[in-house]
């Protein structure tokens, strides 16, 4: 039965993809959203099945059978994958519904193409989280990369968008290489890729093996989840339609890395070094992306850097050993970041394609639902109780505090930066006076119901989504999510800090965040757009990381390519090939002269040759 969950979106992909010229837009919408809803309904049923902590393993057929290596095509449904199933199909369904409103101006076949890609994406993503071994996960992993590429380059007539799509694909490939090498390493050391077998036979791995495998897996995760140094593709990926950014580049695909690490938490627990690398890279990404987000002027770019930053927080949680806190943040982040992206899409829709927040302002009065839901999203991501972001971020901060005080201080700084740039965005876009053209001002309108209803549902989820993980300190027997995940992610220890300390930390972070929001309000309530100078200019240009990569990696590869072309390809390889041709040509021309037509000459040659053979026979041998 569980095979239906990925199969139904695949069918949707085939119907919409093959019938894109035949089906009407309504039919495409019904098929596109309907298949996701069916998958969601089955996921809910599966959720009730595994709720008590059992694991469904569905074994279908042998996928690869070479010598002793036998890899089966299996699905493994347990607490962790069910949670992701619900996020993917639930949030995915809302985004599909939203898309029917957002994309309604597209031509019929492009509209169907959009929905077929989206369904294919959901299919791949479901494969990724349902896979019962690393190989099935890898198939989904590559599938989502492909769909990400297709959807970023959805408006393929724009060359810049195509470049962004290529960039995303290439950077993902770098990460995938690490993932692939990790898989081969695992096969070499354990002879299997099956989750259950690998995790129950960790004794076969030495600690050096575990470190290497986990670091390689982390390279894969860093590519997919946009961590330093492979994060630059995600902001460029905003070239795709906004619902795509919401689904792929905020709620689901980019969290695949977190899923993978949470899934292999047993391997990671074996290596102190890998855990520290994950934590430090995650925190560094969180801070770096947050500082860049402070100065971006494109509404989607701010959200993109915010996503990178939040993903960094999730990796920090994984790195300090709080795997379930990281997964919790994945869930709440899926709600509020999808909400923020969809609300931003609604704003872009209202302004007819305008994305620059310098040309917005005062939208709060014109597009009320969008503004309110966006504000809810901002509060949730900033982490003000009792919104969902507060609980997940607090869980991460608390675990970090237990692990290391310095990391905690830096992480808290990141949380404050988050609150600041999100409220800067809110105040610049929705308060003050409108700064765009008069024509745009006349045009502003609230989005249709297909777009606002998903916004409202996501806003409600953003408010209440955190209650599944209320910390122990507020309620006895709480932390339901952690208990739910305990079959996959063992609950290692109780909190080592006292309840008083915990409450104090919460109060500290909440107060600081509120102060930051106040500061943002004072600064941006009457927006003055000033040219950035000094550090601000560096931040606006994203620390010049793209330029650095261009200079150091792209340019040097180009130079290397030019060197190979001019010094190796032309003289050596071409010389060799053409030389062989010329030699044969010349030889043929010389041999032709032997063909004199004189029979006597031929016979003479024949006799001489025979004599030569005799001589060789008698004297050489």
């Amino acid at each position: 039965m569980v095979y239906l969950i990925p199969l139904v979106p695949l069918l949707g992909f085939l119907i919409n993809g093959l019938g894109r010229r035949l089906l009407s837009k309504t039919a495409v919408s019904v098929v596109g959203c309907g298949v996701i809803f069916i998958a969601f309904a089955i996921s809910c049923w599966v959720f009730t099945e595994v709720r008590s902590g059992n694991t469904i393993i569905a074994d279908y057929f042998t996928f690869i059978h070479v010598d002793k290596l036998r890899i089966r095509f299996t699905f493994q449904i347990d607490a962790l994958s069910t949670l992701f199933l619900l996020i993917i199909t639930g949030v995915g369904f809302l985004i599909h519904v939203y898309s029917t409103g957002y994309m309604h101006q597209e031509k019929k076949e492009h509209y169907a193409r959009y929905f077929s890609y989206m369904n294919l994406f959901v299919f791949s993503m479901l494969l990724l989280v349902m896979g019962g071994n690393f190989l099935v996960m890898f198939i989904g992993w590559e599938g989502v990369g492909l769909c990400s590429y297709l959807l970023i380059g959805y408006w393929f007539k724009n060359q810049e968008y195509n470049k962004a799509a290529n960039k995303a694909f290439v950077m993902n490939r770098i990460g995938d290489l690490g993932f692939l090498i990790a898989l081969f390493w695992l096969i070499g050391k354990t002879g299997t890729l099956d989750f259950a077998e690998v995790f129950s036979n960790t004794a076969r791995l030495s600690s050096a093996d575990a470190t290497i495998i986990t670091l390689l897996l982390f390279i894969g995760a860093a590519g997919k989840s946009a961590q330093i140094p492979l994060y630059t593709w995600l902001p460029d990926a905003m070239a795709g339609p906004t619902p795509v950014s919401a689904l792929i580049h905020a709620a689901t695909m980019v969290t695949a890395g977190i899923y993978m690490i949470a899934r292999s938490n047993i391997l990671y627990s074996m290596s102190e070094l890998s855990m520290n690398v994950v934590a430090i890279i995650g925190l560094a990404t969180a801070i770096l992306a947050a500082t860049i987000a402070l100065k971006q002027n494109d509404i989607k770019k701010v959200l993109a850097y915010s996503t990178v930053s939040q993903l960094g927080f999730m990796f920090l949680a994984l790195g300090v050993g709080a795997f379930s806190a990281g997964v919790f943040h994945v869930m709440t982040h899926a709600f509020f970041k999808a909400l923020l992206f969809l609300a931003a899409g609604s704003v872009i829709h209202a302004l007819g394609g305008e994305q620059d927040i310098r040309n917005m302002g005062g939208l709060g009065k014109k597009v009320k639902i969008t503004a309110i839901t966006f504000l809810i999203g901002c509060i949730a991501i900033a982490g003000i109780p009792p919104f969902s972001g507060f609980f997940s971020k607090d869980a991460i901060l608390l675990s970090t505090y237990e692990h290391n005080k310095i990391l905690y201080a830096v992480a808290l700084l990141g949380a404050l930066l988050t609150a600041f740039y999100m409220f800067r965005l809110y105040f610049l876009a929705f308060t003050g006076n409108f700064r765009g053209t008069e024509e745009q001002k006349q045009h502003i309108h609230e989005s249709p119901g297909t777009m606002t209803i998903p916004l409202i549902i996501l806003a409600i989820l953003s408010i209440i989504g955190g209650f599944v993980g209320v910390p122990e300190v507020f309620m006895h027997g709480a932390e339901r999510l952690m208990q739910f995940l305990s079959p996959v992610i063992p609950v290692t220890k109780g909190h080592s800090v006292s309840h008083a300390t915990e409450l104090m930390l919460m109060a500290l972070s909440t107060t600081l965040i509120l102060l930051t929001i106040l500061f943002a309000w004072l600064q941006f309530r009457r927006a003055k757009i000033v040219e950035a100078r000094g550090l601000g200019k560096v931040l606006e240009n994203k620390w010049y990381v793209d330029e650095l990569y261009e200079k150091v990696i792209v340019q040097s590869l180009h130079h290397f390519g030019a060197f190979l072309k001019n010094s190796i390809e032309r003289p050596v390889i071409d010389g060799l090939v053409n030389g062989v041709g010329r030699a044969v040509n010349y030889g043929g021309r010389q041999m032709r002269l032997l063909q004199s037509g004189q029979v006597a000459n031929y016979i003479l040659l024949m006799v001489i040759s025979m004599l030569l053979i005799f001589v060789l026979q008698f004297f050489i041998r």
Partner: protein
Amino acid sequence: MPINYYIFLSIALFCIGIVGVLTRRNAIIIFMCIELMLNAVNLMLVAFSKMHHLKNVAVNATAGSEGQVLVFFIMVVAAAEVSVGLAIIVMMYRNIHSVDVNFLNRLRH
């Protein structure tokens, strides 16, 4: 008579044949030289088969008879070859009014 004499005679005949083929221009003489070479080989075959027969006659009464028989085959084939070759030479004479092979260099083109 020792086998050596037969071998020397045969080699001499063969070399005369080769030299004749290489140096003469008259097609008929070349043809005769080829026959000479052929028969030098025949002579050798017969001589060797006789030697073989004498050596093994105590064991096998028909030893070496294959060589004798083969020579007859070769003669038959040679006769057929002669008829074809002479026919070609006759045709050649009819066409170019000469039997000089140096005029036959059209194969070059």
